[in-house]
């Protein structure tokens, strides 16, 4: 039973998994602009840019998830990423486990 729900949990986790963590996001952009920017490297599945509901500003960092690993590699082919005059700081998130992804038929 524990194992079964662990399987489920792992499935959820892997879906939550993002590819890239982006810091120093300028305040002017929203996830729409981020998605647009990163779309040049591949198909962006998800972009999560958390906002502080208490101030109305976002927290200057976001997570990006691409459809394929190739997209991610494309992003890191580029030396620096500048969005609206601000230099973004990118960090690749730990590798997704392919085997897990296969398990969930999405």
């Amino acid at each position: 039973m524990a194992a079964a729900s662990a399987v489920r949990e792992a499935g959820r986790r892997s879906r939550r998994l993002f590819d890239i963590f982006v810091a120093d996001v300028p305040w002017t952009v929203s996830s729409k602009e981020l998605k647009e920017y990163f779309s040049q490297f591949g198909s962006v599945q998800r972009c999560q840019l958390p906002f502080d509901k208490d101030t109305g500003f976002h927290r200057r960092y976001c997570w990006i998830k691409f459809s394929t690993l190739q997209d991610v590699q494309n992003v890191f082919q580029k030396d620096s990423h500048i969005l609206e005059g601000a230099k973004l700081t990118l960090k690749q998130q730990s590798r997704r486990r392919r085997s897990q992804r296969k398990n969930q038929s999405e």
Partner: protein
Amino acid sequence: MAALLSSAGRLRALCLRLLPRLRPPATAARPPAPASRNIMYQIRFLTVAPQQEGSVKEEPISEIQTRRTWQFDWALNKLDNSVRKTGRIPKTLLLKVFHEICKTGCPGSNQTLLLLRSCGALLPEVLSPERTELAHMIWDKMKELGAVYDTSHYNALLKVYLQNEHKFSPTEFLARMEEANVQPNRVTYQRLIAAYCNEGDIEGASKILGFMKNKDLPITEAVFSSLVKGHARSGDMKSAENILSVMRMAGVEPGPDTYLSLLNVYAEKGDADSIKKTLEEVEKTEGYLMDRILMQVIFSLAKAGYPQYIEDIKERIRFERELIPDAMNLCLTLITHGFEDISFHILKSLNHLSRDNMDQGNFFLQHCVNRDMPVNKLKQFCSELKEAKMHSAPLPFILRCALEANKSALAIDVMKMMKEEGLPLRPHYSWPLLVGFQKEKNLKGIFEVLKVMHELEVEIDTETYTDYVFKNFADSETARAQLKKNDCLFETVGLSVAEIRYEAAHGRLNNVLSLLSSASTPPIDIRQFRNSLILGFKSSNDVHLWSKITELLYKDERYCLTPPGPTEAVGYFLYHLIDSMSDSEVQAKEERLRQYFHQLKKMNIVIPTTHYSGICRLLDSSQVPELIKDARLLSLKKTLSTDNIPESAKSDVSALEKKLEKRKAENQPITDVLKQLIHALCEEENMQKALEVKAKYEPDMVVGGYAALINLCCRHDNVEEAMNLKEKVFPKNSPVALDTGKYIALVEVLGKHGRLQDAINILTEMKEKDVPISDRTVASFFRILNAAATRGEVETVNRLHETIVNLGLAETAVLHSTLITVHLEKDDMPAALEALINCYKKYGKILQLHNIYCRLIEKGDADLLQKVSDFISREYGDMMALYDLFFAFLQTGKYKEARKVIETPGLRAHSGRLQWFAKKCISSNQMETLEQLVELTQNLFECDRDEMYYYLLQLCENNGDWGKAEAVWTKIQEENVVPREKTLTLLADILEKNGQVVPFEVPKVRHEDTRSLSTSNVEERKIRMLCKKNNAKEAYNIFLKMQGKNEFHYRSYGTLIKALLTQNCLEEAMEVKHIAETHIKGFTLNSAASSLLIISQVRRDYLKDAMAVLKGMLDSGLSPTRPAVIALTQTLAEKGDLKNLQALKNMLEDITKSIGVSASLIANAIALAHTKNNDLDAAVEYLEPLLISGAQNPDQAVRNISYLLRKVSEEGLEPALEKFGVMAERLASQFGIYRPVTDLFLQYVSADRVDDARSLIEAKKIKTLLELIPEHLDMEIAYRYLMRCYELDGDVASVKAVYEKIKAKNIQLHELSLKSLAAFLKKVGEPVPFTEPPETFKFYVEKWRKRRLEAS
């Protein structure tokens, strides 16, 4: 008892026997505990000690000092960092440090000094008067807090005065110092001279100079510099200039201060030539002049109104990187004093210092915004900065400043400018403004922002509405109405999406449905609101709404805009819906999901196979395999995909059967069809038929069909057939293997039926055929073993375990532990112990030890206890054995024995073990045990007492028991323990939260500390919060996630259970209760929660459970709530359960009054139960005497029978109604007891059986009745009948009286009544006091009938 005593004796022997074996760092080597501890703590912790005595009396002072040193360092670091990096201190930082220091309560001398010193030139962004005010505020506040001022403080204040050019009386200042008995020193005098000189008061300065000379104090450069200024300001420039030669004569060389002073006075006079001359002279003689000084001169020129000379000075400054902070401060100061243009000029000199194309001038723009610079000015700066390529996006930057400073007007203006310049404007720019207005509850502001954004052609997006607009209103509908009313309703897709999302996320599915079905809703892809909808589904139990919404999504093309179409979209939605539910949620909603699937099926909704199989996997992992059958209804089967509508499984089977027969008849191959048929039958769970088909077409059966059949047989417990099939088709020696799940199913069913050898063979085969083993398989192994252990089947457990382990299929501690569990289940302690030892020998693990110890102590089995102790001490040493014994004695409440164990000389504290047990106590809310642990370890060598008390406080916190916490505080003092900061903080927290005064200084908590001490509580608080907000589901989800990681407070369990029950989540509540019970010994629900539990159980028809809960409550002295009793009683009655009703009656006998349940309730219920059992005579026999005696005995009166009558009437039990009617009339006519007959009348009236009502009573009865009539009944009808009765009786006076009463009560009579009344009055020759309805009597009768018909 005797056995226990004797065992205690034996145990003492055990301890004694263990003694000599302990290594001897014993008693002699052990210093007296308190002193050693305090020394240790003094070094380690910077806390205030409580009252201490004797030799350790000095310690608190040293601790206070250390703490202050530390705090001073902290504050100093912050301010110092700021000064070093930027040459200034932001006002907010200064205030923050100030408040922090205030919070600690006792400011140190150097802290105060630090704060005072910061109130001058280090605050360039603040105007001078405000800075002085700040200094005074700090001065007074610190004094109030007990700061003692010495000369250094007065001097610091003087410096601030000078820097701020604050006018004050130096003599008064001296007098104040004298008053405070503080001696002025040289610095004081120097600064007082400077103060006089600032005012051009040479006489005053000379007076002070005289003091200094009298005291033989040296006259320094600073004094001469002041005198330069003094003379100049008194108008005597000559003397001022002369001071330099005086200095030299006195042997003091003029330095930078002197030159600055001279340059400043020239600047004040606007004497550019002299400045130039002086500068050149200095350059000649000194060779340099500091750029910093030049910058000061610039400020002086600006202040004095000579900006024209600034450029010349500026050119002399080498703007290098090192100068940036000073230049920035000059700019800021200039802005503060209103010289923003000069400031901007300086700023532009920094142009060449730009690095990496970074934007320059942010500090400038920000300060401009803070100082409320006019928009035009800002605009000008922005465009110039841009032109100079110093800043790439100045307008967005000032927008951000305006938003951060909550300057909405400016922000809006800036956005307008941005639009003019063609810069993009985005919806989220409005969010800080909306947040600001939301905090102020300023709806007007919100509307304004929306309007402006609309004017600026920014399409307000969904997030804006859901996160920042709707929150201000009760729901999205109200929001819409208000937006419309205030002219800011802009119909966009974003708004529609927001409405759907918002209503869905708040669980208002009915609103979602109406939004989705509304014709005005634009096309929206389901993905836009899928997540919110999932949330909504999860918080609702309304299967009908689920289905309706799903149907809309499926059939309304507006919601499925993108390929591949609704099938895919809805399938995806369903998958995610189920995926987002926790296992227990799925389990709790199993029945609802089933209905949901069936309804979807009825709506002809199908989903793709991939999603369907994903859903099946989820359902399987959530342990609801039964639901898979139902989910299957939705699967889009390829074979039937022609019209996208699958036929039901049934027709599937029969179609296949026909097909099969046809093929057979035609002599065509049938294997495929046969396989399909077998699968279809398996899906239908029709084992009988499947086996028949198999038997009939045996030669054509293929492997896959057999495998499905085997699984089916296992599911249906048909072990024989399963094994037959298996042996036949998948014999051991065949290379073909079943999949893991089917093997497991076989092992399970074989184990259950005692076919151990077969089960072992299957396991062996699994190994031989190399079947893949996953975590899930291992979990299944555990399930199988544990089931056998619970059944007490030792051999099964042992042999299966042995096989599993020996074959190397799995090997985990949990699996091993079942070897011991089985003996514990059977209460066979020798065997359990042997299993424990074997486990250790074979697998190197000690399992279930604490349980075994406790069980042995409870049983008083000293021999075995000795044995297990011997074993542990042999393997792990005496110390471990003693701890195990100690904990077991504590756990079982044998504190005396525990004390003996822990006082074994030489025993040392083992923090890890102590922590293990303490945490166990905390999580299971065993306060007494924990207290004993703390108490008994008091003299344990090296025991961290603070830590032990911290555990106690943690439990106090969990229970919100401030009284106990306060006692702990006293104990801490009594024991002379110096608590750590975190302990004090926790204690303070408990007291504060419970509204108590904190009797000590609360230490300032560092961030990390708070975090670490509350990590475990964060989630728990969240759970409580969510419960409070009625979001029990989410709370439950968090709870499940937390399971295992953390244990919960006693109270949190209760809160969560209550919240779940309130939302009718019985299963979840029971799960939490179960967990609570396993974690907390003697966990019981309180009265309210138990009552809710009863209600929930009644709702689900778990009446037996409900009765048990009620009994438990009463046994433990809790009284149930009225609704709980009523619900249970009435439901038992409905079921005709006389036995339980009788039991209930007995149980409640004494408390009916106190809980406000009327005596009639049970009587009605019992009568109804008889009725339900078709025993009307019994009902009447039971009820009638009660009603008769009730009339005479008002104390325990059973008077009304309305409930009974209502029930029988509602359910159309006509004979019963008649029988009770007869009884009621009999009671009225024979005994003058009118209440029953009144009830009957009322029942007739409310059931609209007016004729029956009329036939029942005469006028006088209706009259009494009218007094009894409840509000909600139709008064008109009642009065109409009363009047009608009087008419029939010919009682004119009464008729008239009633009419007056009707008029007085403002009851509208029907025209029919008026017509009838008029006819009556005319007949008896009375005047008609109203206009007689003109039509005929018949007309009104018709009209009346029609109305009745329409109404019904």
